[in-house]
C-alpha cells in the first residue's frame, strides 16, 4: 500500500504535465476545430476572441468545400508519399542489410556510410536534394558522365499527375480497399482455422462491397468532377526521404538478421532448402516483427512530414503539398485558425490509426508475459 502511494506521488508530476500539455491541448484543439475561429477577421486575432460553435462545418468544408480543393490534393499527396516512402525505405533497407549481412570487406565503413544520412536533419537533406534536382544540373547530368545524353525530367517543377481519379469516387475506392483488407483477414482466419472470424469478416466484406457497388458509386461529394492524382513532383521528395531513412531500416534489419540463430539456418540447410527457400520460409518470416516496427516508425514520420517539403519546394507549391503544410498556411498566414485546428486533428487521427493498434498489441504482449 505504502509503495503504491509513493509510486503514485512520484508519477503525479508527469501525469499532471502530460495531462495538461498533451491531452489538455488536444482537447483545446478539438474545441477550436469545432468553432468559427478565423471566419470573422475582427475576432481572429482579437485579444479575447469570441468563438461560435459551428459543429463539424470546418471538416465538411475541407472535404467538400469549393475553395479547399488544395486540401484534398494534399491528402492524396500524403497517401501516395507515405506508401512509396515506406515501400522504398523498407525495400532498399532490406537489400542493403542483406548485402552487409554477408560480411563484405569494409562492412563497418559501409554501415556508417549508409546510416549517416539519418544524422542529418530533413532541412539539410531537402536543401541538398533541391540543388541536386535542379532541371539543368545534379541528377539530370549524371548520365553524361558515362557518355549518355542528359535527362530532361523537371523533377520538382513538373505539374504532371498520374493515377488520376475523381474525388467523387473516394467513398467507392475507400470501401473497396477496406473490403479487400477484410477479405485478407478472412483468408487468414481460414488458414488459422477460425470459422467464426472467417464468417464475420466475409459478411462484413460482403456488405461493404454491396454498398460500394450500389450506393457508393452514386454518392457524390461534390457537384462537379474534381481530378486528383499522384503528383510526379513528389518523386524527387520521395527520393530524398528514402535516401535519408533507408539507412535506418538497414540498421534495424541488420540487427534482425544477426539475431537469427545459426541453428535455424543450419537446420534449413540440412533439410535441403535452397538459398531462396531459406530466405522465403525462414529469414523473412523471422524479420516480420522488425518490418512492423519499421513501418510504424516510417509511417508516422511520413504522415507528419513538413520540413523536408518546406526545404525542397517551399510552402506555396501545390503539387508537393501535404496537409501539415496546408495547415500552416491556413492558420498562420490566412488566420483561419479553426480550419487549421481541424487539419491538425485529422493528422492526429491518421497517426493514431497507425500507432495505437501497434501500441495496444505490444501492451497485450507484455501483459501476457
Amino acid at each position: 500500500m505504502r509503495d503504491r502511494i509513493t509510486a503514485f506521488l512520484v508519477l503525479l508530476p508527469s501525469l499532471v504535465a502530460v495531462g495538461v500539455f498533451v491531452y489538455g491541448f488536444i482537447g483545446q484543439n478539438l474545441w477550436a476545430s469545432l468553432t468559427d475561429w478565423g471566419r470573422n477577421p475582427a475576432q481572429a486575432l482579437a485579444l479575447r476572441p469570441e468563438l461560435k460553435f459551428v459543429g463539424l462545418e470546418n471538416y465538411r468544408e475541407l472535404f467538400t468545400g469549393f475553395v479547399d480543393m488544395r486540401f484534398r490534393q494534399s491528402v492524396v499527396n500524403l497517401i501516395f508519399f507515405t506508401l512509396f516512402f515506406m515501400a522504398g525505405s523498407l525495400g532498399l533497407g532490406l537489400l542493403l542489410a542483406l548485402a552487409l549481412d554477408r560480411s563484405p570487406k569494409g562492412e563497418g565503413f559501409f554501415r556508417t556510410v549508409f546510416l549517416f544520412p539519418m544524422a542529418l536533419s530533413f532541412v539539410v537533406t531537402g536543401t541538398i536534394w533541391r540543388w541536386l534536382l535542379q532541371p539543368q544540373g545534379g541528377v539530370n547530368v549524371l548520365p553524361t558522365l558515362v557518355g549518355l545524353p542528359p535527362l530532361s525530367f523537371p523533377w520538382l517543377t513538373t505539374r504532371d499527375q498520374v493515377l488520376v481519379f475523381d474525388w467523387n469516387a473516394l467513398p467507392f475506392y475507400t470501401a473497396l480497399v477496406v473490403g479487400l483488407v477484410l477479405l485478407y483477414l478472412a483468408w487468414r482466419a481460414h488458414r488459422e482455422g477460425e470459422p467464426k472470424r472467417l464468417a464475420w469478416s466475409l459478411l462484413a466484406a460482403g456488405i461493404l462491397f454491396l454498398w460500394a457497388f450500389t450506393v457508393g458509386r452514386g454518392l457524390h461529394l461534390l457537384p462537379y468532377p474534381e481530378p486528383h492524382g499522384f503528383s510526379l513532383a513528389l518523386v524527387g521528395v520521395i527520393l530524398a526521404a528514402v535516401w535519408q531513412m533507408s539507412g535506418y531500416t538497414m540498421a534495424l534489419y541488420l540487427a534482425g538478421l544477426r539475431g537469427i540463430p545459426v541453428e535455424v539456418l543450419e537446420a534449413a540447410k540440412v533439410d535441403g532448402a535452397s538459398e531462396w527457400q531459406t530466405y522465403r520460409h525462414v529469414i523473412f518470416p523471422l524479420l516480420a516483427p522488425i518490418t512492423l516496427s519499421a513501418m510504424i516508425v516510417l509511417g508516422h514520420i511520413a504522415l507528419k512530414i513538413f520540413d523536408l517539403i518546406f526545404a525542397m519546394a517551399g510552402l506555396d507549391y501545390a503539387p508537393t503539398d501535404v496537409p501539415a503544410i496546408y495547415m500552416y498556411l491556413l492558420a498562420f498566414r490566412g488566420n483561419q485558425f479553426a480550419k487549421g485546428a481541424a487539419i491538425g486533428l485529422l493528422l492526429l487521427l491518421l497517426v493514431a490509426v497507425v500507432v495505437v493498434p501497434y501500441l495496444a498489441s505490444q501492451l497485450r504482449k507484455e501483459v501476457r508475459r
Partner: protein
Amino acid sequence: MRKWLLAIGVALGLSALAQTGKLEIFSWWAGDEGPALEALIKLYKQKYPGVEVINATVTGGAGVNAKAVLKTRMLGGDPPDTFQVHAGQELIGTWVVADRMEDLTGLFRQEGWLQAFPKGLIDLLSYKGGIWSVPVNIHRSNVMWYIPAKLREWGVTPPKTWAEFLATCETLKKKGLQAPLALGENWTQQHLWESVALATLGPEGWNNLWNGKLKFTDPKAVAVWETFGKVLDCANKDAAGLSWQQAVDRVVQGQAAFNIMGDWAAGYMATTLKLRPGTDFAWAPSPGTSGVFMMLSDSFGLPKGAKNRQNALNWLKLVGSKEGQDTFNPLKGSIAARLDSDPAKYNAYGQSAMKDWKSNRIVGSLVHGAVAPESFMSQFGTVMEIFLQSRNPQAAANAAQAIASQVGLGR
C-alpha cells in the same frame, strides 16, 4: 507615508519613461536589408541615448516567418513595442479590425504628415476614420526589367501594352529565345498577375475589385486570366523552382528578355550584380500600366498594450521624418514615402521612381499586402495553383470569387 512612497514611485516612473527604458522593434529585415535598419536604429540611439533598443528580427523573405511569430506573440498577449508590417490591408484586415492597434491620426497631424505623404498613400493607410501605421519606404510593383544592349541585338523595343508584349514574344521565339519572359516561384507568378490585372482593368477597375464593386467572375475580370494565360506561354517552364533573383539572372544572362518584378530587383542588379542602372540594365512600367504607380510599403504601427509606448512613439516619429527616411531608403534600395526627400541621395533608378511617385496615380499591390486582407491573400496562392493546374480562366475566377465572398472582401 504610503502616499509619499507612491508619489515618489510615480515621479520616478514618469522620468524613466521620458528618456530611458527599452524599445523592442520587431521586423524581418536581416541579411541584405539589415544595414538599413541598423542605420535607422543608430540614428534613434543618437537622439535617445538612454533607451536600450532590442532589435528583434525573424528572417524569411517578405516576412513569411516573422508574421507567424508575431501572431503567436500577439495572441499570447505579449506584443512588441512596434512591429514592421506591410502598409494597407495586411495591417488593417488582421490587426486593426481585431482592435489591437492604436490610431495614429494624432501623430500624423502633429508631425504634419498629412501633407508630407501623398493622398493616395494616406487613403491606403486609413480605415474607419483612423490612420494606422507610419510608412517608412515605398517599393513599386509594376516594373518591367530588361537589358538594353540585348534588346538592340534582338531588334525589339520594350512593349507598351500586353498585346504588343505577346507580339514581341512571338518575334523573340522565332529568333530562338525559348522563354522571352523570366518567371520564378508561385508568388512571383502572382506578382506578374497583378501587373496584368492592373493593365487589363485599369486603376479604377483594380480598386473596384478590392472594394467589392467588381466581381472576379465579371467577364472583364475573367479576361485578366485569359491574358495571363497567354503571357505565361511566353515564360520558362521551370518557374516553380526559381527564386526571383534567379529569374532576374536569366534576363541578365540573356536567356530571357524581360522580367516583371518589384523594384528591389534594381537593388539586386545594382548592388549584388554591380550593373549600372539606366545603361547596363533598364526598366519601364509593366505593359499597359504607364502613369500608374502600384505601390507597396513597409510601415511601423503601435500595438495596444505596448510596454514602452513613449519610446515606440519616438521611434515612429523618427521613421516618418525626412531625416529617418533619407537615412533608411538609399541603403534599402527603396524610395521615401515622403514627397520632400532629397533626390541626390538616391541612384538613377531611385530618382526616376521618385519622379513617378510624385506624378503618377497611386494604387496598392495585392501580393504585398496593400489592397486585400491576409485571409484573401494567402488563399490567392491556391487560386493561382488552380489556374496553373487547369489553365481554365473561369475556374480560377470562380475560386477567387468564392474566397472573396468567404472572407468578405470589401466589407
